[in-house]
């Protein structure tokens, strides 16, 4: 695919041909999608949340459909930091695309260990601290709902990371700007948001939760208005780079996120509906720039376009 220079976006650690990346957890480590299209077409790749040791995750069923969305309770299944470093990241080195490495853990020490293990990987451009996973009982979301905890975790990770650090924010809070400002003060290089909203479904025939984990994270088009509102709110209080996500399915959705204040975006659930959604959006973006009279993706920011 021909690269349109107008789509280029440069963020801390991530020089992107375009503002589109698959969101963590919706792309594994790229092998499967590499069978469908050239991963080098993407702006970046957000890899699956990585923990210190391998995790098997939660019992099944782990997904449930909801109106215009889905709930998931995968529970951070992943092969562990060393296996990701040795077996998964080298595969992605075969493509001309930077990696945003999503990091999870139960304790600050675990986050630090994962970052130490992955930080010298040549294709890891930046880290995304998952302080907002709703699907593990210990840790995870706990770090993302208290400004002090979020800040101290950010500081601890920044101390060992040689790569920029983005903090992925949880929407399951009263004031998301307070968390954003706390992690900015702690040295975060950027923000990504939103993670999933905690939700639940109940089988009307049995009265039992559909998910084995009972609760899960809501994603998909249903959460897009929440994501846009939170990005807009945070853009009013900080100039930090923002990777926006939450229900993006089309180039039009991407434009909405750019107007709200995002610098780049991640596409999650839509990969499941349409495995070719990322390259499709990338192809459609130039026509949107033409239509809006924007010289580049960066122009949304440079021209101070806001709402």
């Amino acid at each position, binding site marked *: 695919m021909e690269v349109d220079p107008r789509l280029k976006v440069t963020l801390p650690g991530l020089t992107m041909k375009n503002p589109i990346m698959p969101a963590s*957890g*919706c*792309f*594994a480590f790229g092998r*499967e*999608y590499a*069978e*469908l299209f050239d991963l080098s077409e993407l702006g970046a790749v957000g890899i*699956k949340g990585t923990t210190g040791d391998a995790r*098997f*995750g939660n019992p*099944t*069923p*782990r*997904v*449930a*459909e909801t*109106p*215009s*969305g*889905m709930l*998931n309770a*995968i529970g951070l*299944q992943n092969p562990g930091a060393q296996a990701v470093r040795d077996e998964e990241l080298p595969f992605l080195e075969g493509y001309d695309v930077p990696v945003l490495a999503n990091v999870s853990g139960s304790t600050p020490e675990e986050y630090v260990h994962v970052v130490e293990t992955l930080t010298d990987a040549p294709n890891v451009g930046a880290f995304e601290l998952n302080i907002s996973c709703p699907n593990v009982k210990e840790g995870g979301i706990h770090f993302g709902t208290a400004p002090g905890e979020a800040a101290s975790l950010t500081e601890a990770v920044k101390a060992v990371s040689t790569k920029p650090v983005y903090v992925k924010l949880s929407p399951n809070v009263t004031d998301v700007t307070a968390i954003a400002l706390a992690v900015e003060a702690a040295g975060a290089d950027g923000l990504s948001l939103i993670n999933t909203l905690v939700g639940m479904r109940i089988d009307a025939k049995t009265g039992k939760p559909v998910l084995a984990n009972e609760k899960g994270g809501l994603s*998909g*088009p249903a959460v897009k208005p929440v994501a846009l509102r939170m990005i807009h709110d945070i853009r009013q209080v900080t100039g930090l780079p923002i990777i926006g996500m939450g229900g993006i399915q089309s180039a039009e959705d991407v434009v909405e996120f750019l107007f709200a204040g995002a610098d780049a975006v991640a596409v999650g*659930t*839509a*990969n*499941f*509906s*349409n*495995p*070719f959604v990322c390259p499709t959006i990338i192809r459609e973006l130039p026509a949107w720039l033409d239509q809006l009279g924007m010289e580049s993706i960066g122009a949304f920011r440079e021209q101070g376009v806001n709402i």
Partner: protein
Amino acid sequence: MKNERMIVEQNKSIAAKTHEMTLSGPLVAHLAQPGTFLHVAVPGDDLVLRRPISIAAVDRDAGTCTIVYKEEGEGTKRLSRCRAGDGVDVFGPLGKQGFPAEQPSPGDDVLIIGGGVGVPPLYFAARELAKRGVSVSVILGFQTAAAIFYERAFRELSGCEVRVMTNDGSNGHAGTVIDALNERPSPPDWLFACGPRGMLRAVETHGAHSKTNGYVSLEERMGCGIGVCFACVCETGDRASYRKICRDGPVFRFKEVVI
């Protein structure tokens, strides 16, 4: 793996809440292995997950394939409303491991056990076996007479012997497929099964034998269908690792995974 808009040639009810859809399109040329499945997008933008539906038959000459699905929720209800000429967004074939219908030799004792909506991929397997001159014994299990489908289709296959079991005895023999399995005088050389998880567990327990090459097809709620989301995992038999049903299966050898 291809993603294309296939054309509905026919869509009809064949049993209680059970529908058969025939689709045409270039994707048919890529369908070869019984047990693999299609990921079908439901009409309407508000349902974000595709439905994994197994392939019941492929007719390469006609350029068509047949899928059978049960109407269980809004998504499958919408599929049931599709009419001839409509387009349906299909992704597939998915799954790396199907039923090894190419392996049994003529003269081998091949047993197929299907329960309810698990029957369709076994019909695909039986057709492939019949084409190769392999005789097949088939045990089909349904809740009740109104749920029975494909009994005649199996009987029409050359060398196919069919026994139907209904839980309530309203058709065929009263009882479960396990009752029929246990009445057999000797273990089969090959056993292919698909159906509810409880049935498959029992099939593995009662059908496992050193001479039997046993295979089961598993179903689970799926997200992506290609192995990236980790929704449909199951533990390996030694409980030391895991398999993805959509990617590594959906057919597994007996004991390969915990059913």
